[in-house]
């Protein structure tokens, strides 16, 4: 069993009708927030001309990353990061595959370079001037637990805070029957190893164990429940529930035979 003690320095959120972490907490508590009609965030960090061309997954990830770093009072340029999308940018996949199935296979160069899975991490590091390591990973159903472990190990080894951002956008029509998710949802957490925890802040312990687990069943209010089940990165809700005192600990599957458990230490 391997253990990693850490604290959470800042959280950012954008999903359903929530536009911030305080608003997501309201949704989690069953207090509806009126829909402002926006189809996605418009992160001020990205210059206006770039922002117009930035795909929704990128805007989701950059928005919540900025919120989390601001909450943590850290300069994003000095924070390494791990970004994860469980499903990728299926809107761009749809565009590319539609064009490539046609007679005229000329692709938009901007759409092509935005189609890389690390587009979100790329826009983030470019917008913030961050030259630190930026990892961009995929884990399908286990995206949240794998990214948490990857980030914890790196934070512990480097003895530095680390940003992790979970984001997934609605799946395009053709792949919708397979990959389901209709919800834009993004959450970012800035974590620090215990040695860098601010005095008095809660310390959590994550343990990796060789035993099988399933995602915690939940009964979230409103559309959150459906989002939790269909959007792979919304599984982060079970971690957020624990951080806000709803659960004593949470156990998540890491693979078919391993799991990660997070509990409060102090």
């Amino acid at each position, binding site marked *: 069993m*391997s253990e*990693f003690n850490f604290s959470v320095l800042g959280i950012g959120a954008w999903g359903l009708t929530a536009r911030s972490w305080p608003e997501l907490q309201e949704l989690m508590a069953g207090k509806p927030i009126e829909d402002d009609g926006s189809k996605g965030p418009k992160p001020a960090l990205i210059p206006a001309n770039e922002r117009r061309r930035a795909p929704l997954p990128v805007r989701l990830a950059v928005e919540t990353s900025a919120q989390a770093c601001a909450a943590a009072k850290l300069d994003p*340029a000095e924070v390494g990061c791990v970004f994860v999308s*469980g*499903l*990728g940018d299926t809107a761009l*996949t749809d565009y*590319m*595959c*539609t064009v*490539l*199935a046609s007679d005229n*296979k*000329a*692709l*938009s*160069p901007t759409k*092509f*370079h935005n189609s*890389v*899975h*690390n*587009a979100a*991490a*790329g*826009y983030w*590091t*470019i917008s*913030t001037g*961050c*030259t*630190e*390591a*930026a*990892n*961009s*990973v*995929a*884990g*399908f159903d286990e*995206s949240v637990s*794998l990214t948490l*472990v*990857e980030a914890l*190990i*790196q934070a*512990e*080894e480097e003895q530095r805070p680390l940003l992790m951002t979970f984001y997934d956008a609605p799946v395009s029509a*053709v*792949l919708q*029957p*397979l*990959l389901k998710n209709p919800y834009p949802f993004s959450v970012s957490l800035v974590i620090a190893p215990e040695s860098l925890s601010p005095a008095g802040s809660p310390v959590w312990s994550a343990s*990796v164990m*060789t035993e099988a687990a399933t995602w915690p069943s939940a009964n979230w209010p409103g559309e959150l429940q459906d989002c939790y089940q269909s959007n792979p990165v919304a599984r982060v809700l079970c971690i957020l529930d624990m951080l806000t005192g709803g659960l004593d600990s949470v156990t998540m599957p*890491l*693979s*078919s*035979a*391993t799991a990660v458990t997070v509990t409060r230490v102090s």
Partner: protein
Amino acid sequence: MDIRLLDYQSTSAAGVDIGALRQSIDTQTSGLRKNDMPGSDLTTWIGRVPGVEDINLGDWQSRNNALAHLGYQQGTIATHVENLKSSLGSQRLGIVMGSSTSSIDRTEAAYRHLEDGALSLPYRQPLVHNPHAPSLYMAHLTGITGPALTINTACSSSAKVFATGARWLRAGIVDAVLVGGVDTLCLSVLHGFDSLQLVSPNQCRPLDQHRDGINLGEASGFAILVRAGDGYADSGIRLLGYGESSDAHHMSHPHPDGLGARLAMQQALTRAQLRPEQIDYINLHGTSSRANDLIEGQLIGKLFPKSTQVSSTKAWMGHTLGAAGITEALIAVDALQRGVIPGSLNLAELDHELDLSVQADNITRDMHYVLSNSFGFGGNNCCLVFGSVA
């Protein structure tokens, strides 16, 4: 660092296993061919692996999974994994795969066979049409039940697998890691890079004054990482250091001063506790694009002395994108193992603005330390340092 390579294998147009790759290098025979990908009329050269299309994986079918399957069958990688599963338990092995296309080739095919705008039956494969597909398939194929992560950082993807794999071992969440990379030729990459005007109609000529663009290729590669103290009869190759950085500059253009590339190389050397003059050979990212080779070459010229030999091996199998990191890391490792530095194939006249120890011919030399560079879209960089056990 205390990480060893237990075994390694590489499959590309230059050879379906490491033995065939050695032969291609020794005879300076390129695996590039004129573009013959079905459905693509681009005038260019490609590094296509013959026989991939003959592999049938049923529900897991994709060209990318087929190339991973083919690569995993080579040499003794699978035997080592079976032995490790028996001695450690399958849950104590991890998988870290790097890719950029994952299985987008299959999604392209699915779109060519839509029925009334919907996926037809053979293409309803949720575990294939997603960016984690390479690791999902390798977990299925190998029976490894520990953590499996896919890194998708464009062309640095399968270099970064070594960094993550090493961290997993040191953190103790697993006792051995199968690291790998697989990327496949498909219309997305051919026509995508063509849209950026980066594809050459000729055989690529990395570092050459008259280079005019890249050739795309496909590859799979695997290595097994273990902790040195665990007593395995390993290959004698150590992973000594890695460096990971971001350019913070542009999605598809490298930083003009090679800022992120420099940070990655310096970090890798610091971690390995080595000075530049101790590096015998560098396998460059060296794509054969005008900008990349100039920026990387000038940077190497500033950071390393002339005693450090460099080359780009992309004229052997093309730029294999998300599989380039591990393909080139293993070429560097094998150069160390054999004492043969591959030349920079197709180099006739070095770029007039570069001053490097580079030549087209192979060099036979005893070596201690080698380095491999991988720089990707989004300004994502990784540099690896390997050494032989003294």
